[in-house]
């Protein structure tokens, strides 16, 4: 009979647990993902904000600036006048105040001017020539992107100088001419044909250009003033805001009298009013919209009020009567007016028994402008009276900026120029039969479509740190002339402010995911493409790495087994 021998287990360790496969326990796996930050998501030019803020924080200043100018050649300008929707959507706003993205953009823009940094030169030269009509931000941005890709660009500009409204409308106290001039000079170093004092006037003129160039980009802005019938039959001086602002920008002193009423609620109205204040007038602003609905940038409205503008929101002029020889009485009434995205001509409802009068020596009209479409093909004029973008792209004709959009912001114009440049390149490549695709953008495309939410930010890692604001010079100073009102940040302030950025969705190699894994399933590696890597053999899917990533750069994805 055979005796069964029992094997006695050893009391000594004979192996290590790292041969185990604890990865089979999990039902979800963390993945590293570059995700959109809310600031970038809303930025019209799709600026890589978290990336350049990190560069700024690490004092890689030129690198930070290069990241901005890849998409926007005018950071010193936009750092002053952009309506910065990025800040309104910044995740830090919900914590201890938004990151001062706009002032940091100004800091880098100004630094680049001071240091004389140049824009990257085109890496190749292409044969195709493109005509850009209009030398405002939209036209210049398009010209820049085309030139960067090596194309030959001619800019046609009606005025004796480039810049569009930046040069001839936005007042000196917000955007000094010298700043714009420096950014333009640097741009022109890339090599363009610039034809100044050259207005495209007739259809023949325009068709000639289309024959001569591979593609045409139209960005002529909107300069045709709308008029107000109530003010038509009066001897009173009625200024068109753009004429008034342009005169002042040229250094002239238009005679507006002592009492001025500005009609309108957009940036042009507020700028006209603040400019009139600086010419010594007492200024009232009358707008159809309520305060909350004003199209002007809110900080401008507030700054104007602080400087002494008296606002009449939700009101309109019904007529005008002379008093004596130089002055007039404007008959006004309160109204209800709701601007609408869908209806271009929303109703104005007059409120009974709310009549009032305002005395004025002159009126500045800032109630909107439309593009002059005379030289352009009628197919291009859309229902809303603007040049329609996208209507003739297959014929090499592209449109952008104020002339084709009611979204009238500098950054929107720059974005249009950039995006249309991509389309123009695509069109020209298509013509040649090459389908290399559009290598302009898309390279760093983020995978996830939803931007990182505040709830995904782990605020433990960010001790409370209030925002550093640009200083405003005192009132007495600012009203006595046209010197710039806001002072830029110092380098120390800028670096401090940039360090407040959570870097939403953008890994900054902080190592938290690595340190907090109880299974040591996160490895740092240099040989694989990403910097961090998860070992599937061990990861149990607990989600600690996701929770402890301060910025939502790791997410858990369910795994089907």
């Amino acid at each position, binding site marked *: 009979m055979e005796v069964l021998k029992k094997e006695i287990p050893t009391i000594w*360790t004979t192996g*290590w647990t790292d041969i*185990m496969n604890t990865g089979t326990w999990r039902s979800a796996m963390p993945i590293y993902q570059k995700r959109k930050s809310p600031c970038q998501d809303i930025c019209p030019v799709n600026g890589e904000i978290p990336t350049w803020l990190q560069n700024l924080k690490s004092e890689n200043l030129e690198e930070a600036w290069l990241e901005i100018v890849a998409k926007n050649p005018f950071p010193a300008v936009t750092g002053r006048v952009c309506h910065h929707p990025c800040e309104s959507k910044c995740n830090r706003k919900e914590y201890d105040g938004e990151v001062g993205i706009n002032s940091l953009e100004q800091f880098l823009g100004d630094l680049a001017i001071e240091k004389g940094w140049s824009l990257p030169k085109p890496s190749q030269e292409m044969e195709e020539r493109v005509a850009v009509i209009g030398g405002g931000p939209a036209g210049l941005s398009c010209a820049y992107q085309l030139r960067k890709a090596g194309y030959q660009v001619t800019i046609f500009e009606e005025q004796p100088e480039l810049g569009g409204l930046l040069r001839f409308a936005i007042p000196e106290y917000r955007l000094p001419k010298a700043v714009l001039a420096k950014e333009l000079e640097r741009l022109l170093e890339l090599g363009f044909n610039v034809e100044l004092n050259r207005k495209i006037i007739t259809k023949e003129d325009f068709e000639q250009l289309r024959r001569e160039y591979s593609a045409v980009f139209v960005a002529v802005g909107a300069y045709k003033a709308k008029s107000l019938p109530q003010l038509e039959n009066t001897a009173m001086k009625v200024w068109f805001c753009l004429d008034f602002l342009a005169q002042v920008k040229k250094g002239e002193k238009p005679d507006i009298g002592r009492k001025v009423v500005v009609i309108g609620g957009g940036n042009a109205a507020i700028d006209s009013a603040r400019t009139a204040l600086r010419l010594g007038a007492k200024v009232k602003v009358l707008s159809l919209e309520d305060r909350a609905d004003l199209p002007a940038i809110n900080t401008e409205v507030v700054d104007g009020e602080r400087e002494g503008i008296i606002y009449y929101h939700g009101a309109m002029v019904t007529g005008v009567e002379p008093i004596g020889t130089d002055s007039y009485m404007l008959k006004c009434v309160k109204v209800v007016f709701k601007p609408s995205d869908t209806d271009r001509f929303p109703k104005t409802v007059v409120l009974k028994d709310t009549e009032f009068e305002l005395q004025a020596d002159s009126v500045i009209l800032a109630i909107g402008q439309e593009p002059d479409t005379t030289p352009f093909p009628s197919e291009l004029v859309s229902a809303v009276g603007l040049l329609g973008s996208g209507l003739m792209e297959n014929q090499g004709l592209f449109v952008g900026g104020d002339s084709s959009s009611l979204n009238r912001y500098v950054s929107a114009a720059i974005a249009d120029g950039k995006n249309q440049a991509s389309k123009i390149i695509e069109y020209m490549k298509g013509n040649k039969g090459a389908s290399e695709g559009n290598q302009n953008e898309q390279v760093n495309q983020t995978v996830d479509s939803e931007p990182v939410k505040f709830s995904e930010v782990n605020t433990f890692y960010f001790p409370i740190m209030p925002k550093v604001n640009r200083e405003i010079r005192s009132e007495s100073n600012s009203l006595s002339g046209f010197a710039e009102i806001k002072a830029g940040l110092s380098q120390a302030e800028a670096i401090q402010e940039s360090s407040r950025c959570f870097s939403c969705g953008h890994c900054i190699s902080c190592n*938290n995911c690595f340190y907090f894994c109880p299974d040591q*399933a996160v490895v740092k590696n240099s040989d694989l493409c990403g910097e961090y890597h998860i070992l599937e053999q061990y990861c149990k899917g607990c989600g600690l790495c*996701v929770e402890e990533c301060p910025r939502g750069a790791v997410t858990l994805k369910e795994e089907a087994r």
Partner: protein
Amino acid sequence: MMISYNIPEEKVFLSGHNACPGCGEALALRYILNTLGPETVGVVPPSCIAIISGPQPYSSMRIPVYQTTLEASAASAAGIKRALDVQGKTQVNVVALAGDGGTYDIGFQALSAAAERNEDIIYICLDNEGYMNTGAQKSSATPWLAYTTSTPGGKPTGKKNVAEIMAAHEIPYVATATVGFPDDLTAKIRKAKEMKGMRFIVVLTPCLAGWGVPDSQAVRVSRLAVDTGIFPLYEVENGRKYTLNWEPRGIPVDTYLRTQSRYKHLTADQIEEIQQEVNRNMTYLREKQ
């Protein structure tokens, strides 16, 4: 500025261990073992630590580990240390890694005696506030009113203050630490490693199953314990010199208690009482500094 870590590690603790996903105790073991390094002998009594150290014949700890009885961790460690000294291996650290049941309760006699003799060992208590690997029964480390399977109505008595008891032995080093502050935890291990005599560290390690916490929350809960003042981070040298290592951010205890289902039955009055108690404890602690 941003809080971030830079922690040197020598890989002694291995992947593939049997801890629950997201376990706070496994994370603590990673830091303790990877900081002590390979010239270490471990002593482990029955506890989750014994489970994590590996199913025989496999080990997750690349050092010799002696599994002792629940009563005897400190005595076993002291014996091993003395034997190593006799062999001339004086540089080897001996560390006892015990749970709260094995420290506050069942192994306490041996611990107190080793402290009284100032044995040259490091004793680390991984405090998950209960007898967890046996099914979440209460220990004397379980806090007042916390639910455990043996206190279904909430624990009627408070948590023993083991750090103060050990400080009263006037040993060279006593410290508290937790996994939400890995830089503080590893700094204390490094400091203990360089010292001689009896060193005692109690590390709060959230137990997900026992406390009723989601898998991803051990670190957050650990940090809230500190920032509410429920588990302050401090050190005591020679029973006299007190140092508070992290100023709690003054988060209300309610925020901490609400992260765990073991406290879900608490009334507003009870939470307020806990808050008052925590405030008093913080005041005493500050006075000792």
